[in-house]
């Protein structure tokens, strides 16, 4: 920070992430609108509160342990090494507070730590936190209208502050063991956020069961139309917008990608420190969105819900390789993913009676897995890292990675916890409340209050009449 150029680099990076965080917050506005729109009128407030409260709960737990897990668990631990020391990410560390980057006060830190993290720790933490909340929010839509809030928040914290953070440490960091050993490449988180959240949602849905009335006696599903289509559509548009911010937040804006032999070449990079450009990811984001929208419209014969969700799924499918794809590849990959997941969604729904209220398992889970696997085929042989000793991208490395994300860290932990909660009757709300609606007490109270106000107004009107008659 002692000359204009280095100060500009640090302050620009700080500002860059700050802007991305604000943009990404729109994802949550979008999720809330979307879920409230999809839920029935009798469950609106509960749906809103369930999704809103995951934000503070994941925020504090990500502060308590999530951020530290990301740095500490990159070797497994036990696969390529032990726990990494990461004092700057401990919740009690001075670098989590306002800091000028000078001499460390705590003995655990070095001068290098303070210089590197003083101005970037908070914005990196914030960006990751929003990723965490997104992971939790993806679960939220799938399980609406019948899960207990306390059970849902437990899953949200588990996925948002623990399991997805472990998969990010393994496969979404410059030196994670999956990058080193498998050549895992997932630049914009097809697997590390979407596949794991989809896998988690599927496990919870399996134990949670469908909403009452979802399936006819012959096993065919009944459609629960959104109570407000406009909310769902505006919500999805906002999710697209926030997702755009997410893409930028996955990059490092200025990094020397050729520090060898005294040369320098500054570029934007992915989280793996491999070069890309904001220009390329803008093209690919939009072209995969377009591919997904067109495929969604085509396969659903113009159904608005699947068309909009198809746009999102198109981006998710192409995200693993959108740092490197040609825009036409991103377009086709996005479209292909949507065609596959649409069929898969209905097959799983009918075969296993899974009631996924918003199609989250398909849009995030299946699209994420398909995207990671396709990246292995299309980017076969590319170096996964600037470190020449690390594995290259391969179809089998990506396939193993996708399975770890969807099943290993997504499906399995949530399956175990959901089965425990179900056993103790802590997973699903009581049947009478589901039938009456989760907002029925709020609505009754509102009706009582409204009636009381009307009665008071009537009395006031009668008094006024009497006064006028008397005068």
């Amino acid at each position, binding site marked *: *920070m*002692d000359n204009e150029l280095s100060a500009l680099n640090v302050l620009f990076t700080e500002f860059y992430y700050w802007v991305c965080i604000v943009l990404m917050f729109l994802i949550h506005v979008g999720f809330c609108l979307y879920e409230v729109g999809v839920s*029935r*009128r*009798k469950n609106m407030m509960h749906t809103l509160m369930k999704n809103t409260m995951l934000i503070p709960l994941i925020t*504090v*737990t990500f502060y*308590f342990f999530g951020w530290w897990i990301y740095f500490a668990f990159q070797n497994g631990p036990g696969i390529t090494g032990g726990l990494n020391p990461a004092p700057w990410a401990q*919740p*009690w*560390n*001075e670098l989590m*507070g*306002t*800091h*000028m*980057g*000078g*001499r*460390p*006060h705590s003995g655990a830190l070095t001068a290098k730590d*303070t210089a590197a993290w003083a101005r970037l720790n908070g914005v990196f933490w914030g960006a990751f936190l929003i990723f965490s909340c997104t992971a939790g929010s993806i679960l939220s839509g799938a399980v609406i209208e019948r899960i*207990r*809030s*306390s059970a849902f*928040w437990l899953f949200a914290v588990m996925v948002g502050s623990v399991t997805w953070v472990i998969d990010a440490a393994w496969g979404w960091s410059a030196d994670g063991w999956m990058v080193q050993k498998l050549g895992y490449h997932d630049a914009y988180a097809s697997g590390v956020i979407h596949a794991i959240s989809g896998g988690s949602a599927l496990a919870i849905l399996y134990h949670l069961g469908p909403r009452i009335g979802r399936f006819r006696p012959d096993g065919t599903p009944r459609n629960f139309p959104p*109570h407000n289509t406009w909310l769902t559509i505006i919500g999805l548009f906002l999710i697209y917008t926030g997702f755009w911010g997410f893409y930028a937040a996955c990059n490092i804006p200025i990094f020397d990608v050729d520090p060898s032999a005294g040369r320098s070449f500054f570029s934007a990079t992915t989280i793996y420190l491999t070069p890309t450009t904001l220009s390329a990811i803008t093209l690919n984001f939009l072209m995969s969105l377009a591919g997904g929208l067109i495929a969604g419209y085509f396969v659903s014969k113009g159904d608005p819900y699947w068309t909009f969700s198809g746009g999102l799924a198109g981006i998710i499918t192409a995200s693993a390789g959108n740092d490197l794809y040609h825009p036409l590849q991103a377009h086709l990959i996005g479209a292909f993913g949507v065609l596959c997941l649409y069929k898969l969604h209905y097959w799983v729904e009918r075969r296993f009676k899974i009631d996924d209220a918003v199609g989250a398992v398909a849009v995030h889970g299946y699209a994420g897995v398909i995207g990671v696997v396709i990246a292995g085929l299309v980017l076969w042989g590319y170096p996964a890292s600037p470190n020449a000793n690390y594995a290259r991208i391969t179809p089998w490395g990506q396939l193993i990675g996708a399975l770890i994300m969807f099943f290993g860290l997504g499906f399995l932990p949530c399956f175990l916890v959901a089965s425990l909660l179900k056993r103790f009757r*802590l997973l699903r*709300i*009581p049947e*009478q*409340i589901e*039938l*009456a*609606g989760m907002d*029925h*007490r709020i609505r009754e109270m509102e009706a009582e209050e409204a009636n009381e106000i009307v009665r008071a107004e009537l009395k006031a009107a009668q008094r006024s009449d009497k006064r006028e008659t008397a005068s």
Partner: protein
Amino acid sequence: MKTGLVESWAKNPSEMGPLYPFVGLEVPLFLICFIVWVLYTVWQMKFELSNHAREREDLSQEDRLLKTIESNLRNH
């Protein structure tokens, strides 16, 4: 009395470390926040369970559930 380490803003900023007050008390602060989170979680679970029990009792009254479902249908 002073709560922080900052003596003067005119001092060389590159020498400055933490600017927040009560440096050195971070671990007790963390423990307080962590305990509050645990207590909140326990309270929320109990609160939800007792709410559900009350609602079930309420809905078990004669015709109450049917009337609520009919009212939902009218409001749909």
